[in-house]
């Protein structure tokens, strides 16, 4: 009710303000950083439970639980510890290698997985800030990958130039595919969530068609729905030599993170983006062209997400690609953007974390036979927990910060006799 707001505003505070120390403690305990960390911990715990439950060794041991209960507990510990230690060793540092140079290789894998996640997450975050929900990462990546890839294998240009042209083509492709969404939103009010979901499928079928059609994307002389390898001139160069799996894309991603930070917090365009995202009506009345902002934001968002596709095609798998080139990054980017709270550096670190999960997930699958799908479970749980701070606070018995909306009580309030 509108009147309450005014009431709350105009009635003076009659309760003494809490002491400064209390406020500080409250901010740390209830602040978003600790919620983020606790969410990750909670999700990992749930993941561990799942791993334990499906482990046949635990099942075997629990068969004689009452005879030797410690066996069961031991098996459970081995199961969870084994999984997460192989995850760590696959993502950060492998202690089984003789020297640092070899031991640190998993971390470069993480960086390699993180680069497209970060840049796609930046794209989703950019759309978030203007109030749009870009679920179209898959489509934008596929189109960008196709454009960059086509230039990459079909053209014959000098080094550097070829790479630049291929990246530019990919950026244009992603931007156009995202821009369609912005255009439809601006011109007709079409809901971007629906349009982006639908465009994902349109892009998928379009690329599938092109991949199996000779003269378009299909490699000459092949019957497989796959392209020819990328011309070496257009491949993103290795960053740390050929023994590490990290390419120049990482540098581009860091540069783009800085660029996005500048756009959002230091530029006039970003100011207008944020105004539209927070209150499109007021923005419109203030002379900001809301429809253009939607289009610009989706162009940039599509371009950034497209960059992830470009890195995949020109960096990660330059040997030619098929329709699975997006590798689920388009959807992972949503969780990355949410975990990073749509702030550029938040997205950067969220992308690193999820990159580590991916790198470690594959190692875990290889070493312990635990399906990589567990990573999806952990990622989605992290985002769910982060989105509902009151739940996390309730689970860890943390105080609720002042001014934070409380969870809604679903039932009728309990009647209490109120006395004077």
């Amino acid at each position, binding site marked *: 009710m509108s009147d309450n707001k005014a009431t709350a505003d105009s009635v003076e505070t009659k309760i003494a303000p809490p002491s400064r120390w209390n406020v500080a403690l409250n901010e740390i305990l209830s602040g978003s950083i600790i919620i983020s960390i606790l969410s990750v911990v909670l999700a990992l715990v749930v993941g561990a439970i799942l791993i334990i439950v499906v482990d046949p060794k635990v099942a075997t041991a629990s068969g004689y639980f009452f005879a030797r209960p410690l066996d069961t507990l031991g098996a459970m510990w081995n199961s969870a510890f084994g999984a997460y230690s192989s995850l760590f060793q696959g993502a950060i540092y492998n202690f089984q290698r003789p020297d640092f140079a070899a031991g640190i290789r998993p971390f470069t894998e993480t960086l390699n997985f993180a680069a497209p996640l970060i840049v796609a997450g930046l794209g989703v975050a950019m759309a978030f800030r203007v109030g749009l929900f870009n679920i179209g990462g898959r489509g934008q990546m596929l189109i960008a990958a196709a454009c960059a890839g086509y230039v990459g294998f079909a053209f014959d240009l000098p080094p550097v130039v070829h790479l630049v042209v291929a990246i530019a083509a990919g950026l244009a492709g992603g931007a156009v595919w995202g821009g369609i969404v912005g255009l439809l939103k601006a011109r007709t009010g079409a809901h971007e969530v629906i349009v982006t979901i*639908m465009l994902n499928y349109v892009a998928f079928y379009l690329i599938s068609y092109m991949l199996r059609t000779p003269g378009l994307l299909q490699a000459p002389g092949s019957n497989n729905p796959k392209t020819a390898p990328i011309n070496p001139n257009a491949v993103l160069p290795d960053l740390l030599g050929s023994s590490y799996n990290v390419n120049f894309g990482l540098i581009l991603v860091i540069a783009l993170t800085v660029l996005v930070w500048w756009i959002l917090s230091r530029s006039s365009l970003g100011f207008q983006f944020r105004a539209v995202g927070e209150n499109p009506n007021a923005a419109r009345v203030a002379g900001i062209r809301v429809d253009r902002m939607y289009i610009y934001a989706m162009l940039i968002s599509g371009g950034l997400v497209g960059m992830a596709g470009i890195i995949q095609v020109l960096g990660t798998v330059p040997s030619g690609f098929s329709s699975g080139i997006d590798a689920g990054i388009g959807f992972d980017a949503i969780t990355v953007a949410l975990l990073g709270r749509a702030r550029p550096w938040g997205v950067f670190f969220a992308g690193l974390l999820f990159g580590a999960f991916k790198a470690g997930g594959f190692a875990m699958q290889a070493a312990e036979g635990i399906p990589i*799908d567990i990573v999806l479970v952990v990622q*989605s749980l992290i985002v769910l927990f982060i989105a509902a701070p009151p739940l996390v606070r309730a689970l860890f018995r943390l105080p609720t910060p002042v001014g934070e909306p409380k969870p809604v009580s679903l039932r009728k309030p309990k009647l209490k006799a109120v006395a004077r």
Partner: protein
Amino acid sequence: MSAPVVTPENSASMPVQPAASSNVIVREKEAIRSWKAPISFAVFAALATVLFWILGKDGTSNFRLSTDTDLIQINSVDLPALATGIVISLALILITALSFWLSLQKRPTPIWIVAIYGVLFMVGFLTWAGVGESILVPGLLLGALGLSIPLIFGAMGGIISERVGVVNVAIEGQLLAGAFVSALVASVTGSAYVGLVAAMAAGMLVSFVLATFSIKYLVDQVIVGVVLNVLVLGLTSFLYSSVLTQHSSELNSPPRFDFIPIPLLSEIPILGPVLFRQTIIVYLMYIIVAVVAYALVKTKWGLRLRSVGEHPQAADTVGINVYMTRFWNVSLAGAIAGIGGAYFTLGSVGSFQKDMTAGAGFIALAAVIFGRWDPIRALLAALLFGFATNLQSVLAIIGSPVPSEFMLMLPYIVTIIAVAGFVGKVRGPAASGKPYIKG
């Protein structure tokens, strides 16, 4: 300050005037012309003229209207391709002209004209595409219905959820959860019926999470939906890879539902075998669509549900518990979508596969929007989408002139066109997607 305008005495005697009294200034209404329908018609008419007429092929297309096992046999129909193409192209041009005329008169193009246009275009397309081939019409329809069933269940779940004010992007997750759990439970218990109930419970469980996070914790409904889809996909894939594949004979070989032909009805030519020689899930679908369509408008449940989705505060002020109404109806929506999931494993495929719903939930969502949140329209939209998908596989068999990918794209493109407002104004429930915070 000056005196009151009118004294109480003369105000009491003043008759209550109807709103539009004889005032000098009358609020007029001016119709705004909409060219969307005629322009869309013109595009397709031009396409038809080029394809069916100018690029038309000589020969005939054969349409078989009954199968060998049918009681009543109908002769097949041969259509001369070029002549049919010319007739249909002309008819489409005529309808387009009519639509332009209506727009000039500032009148909208009625929906039945759109329907006739669509059917004509389809017949023309099939005749053109099937030159020299034979198309089994009941088979085409049967396949279309089969592909539509999960979409219809998903769409009904979507409609209930959205009409009560909670955007349901998690239909995909509800379908997938239903498919997984029904396969598992039916395999273990040996009963498809128990599997069906379990599927409903699974869909409901997904809904519980959606409802708790969006209603209680006020998390953006679309975000919860999107994340839930990922969660269910991850969970089912993980359990499938780690458990089901190792024990597929015990855990992933559910019994399937039997076909139950309904006497008499199943003997109706063309449609009988399609509609009434089906499994229990399909009959359940008929009942659910009918009940939802009726109850949403005519019953207390429907009135309250819609009031909460349109104006939750108004509902609250007359004593309706907005949160509980939303919570339980979202759960109901999940249960219905769960049945659609069971159809994948107990009705068609016969076992669970990783990510087997493959985006059906999103097409169901498209059907909800294309059907403007109305059960019957959504049913038709789902049937249309199922038809398009099945047409693609039929055309692949007879040697399609159109790449199959473009047929598969159709539902998605149609939906984009719909939300962009080219098929009338699409208006969702007013409070859908907005969390309700008291006061």
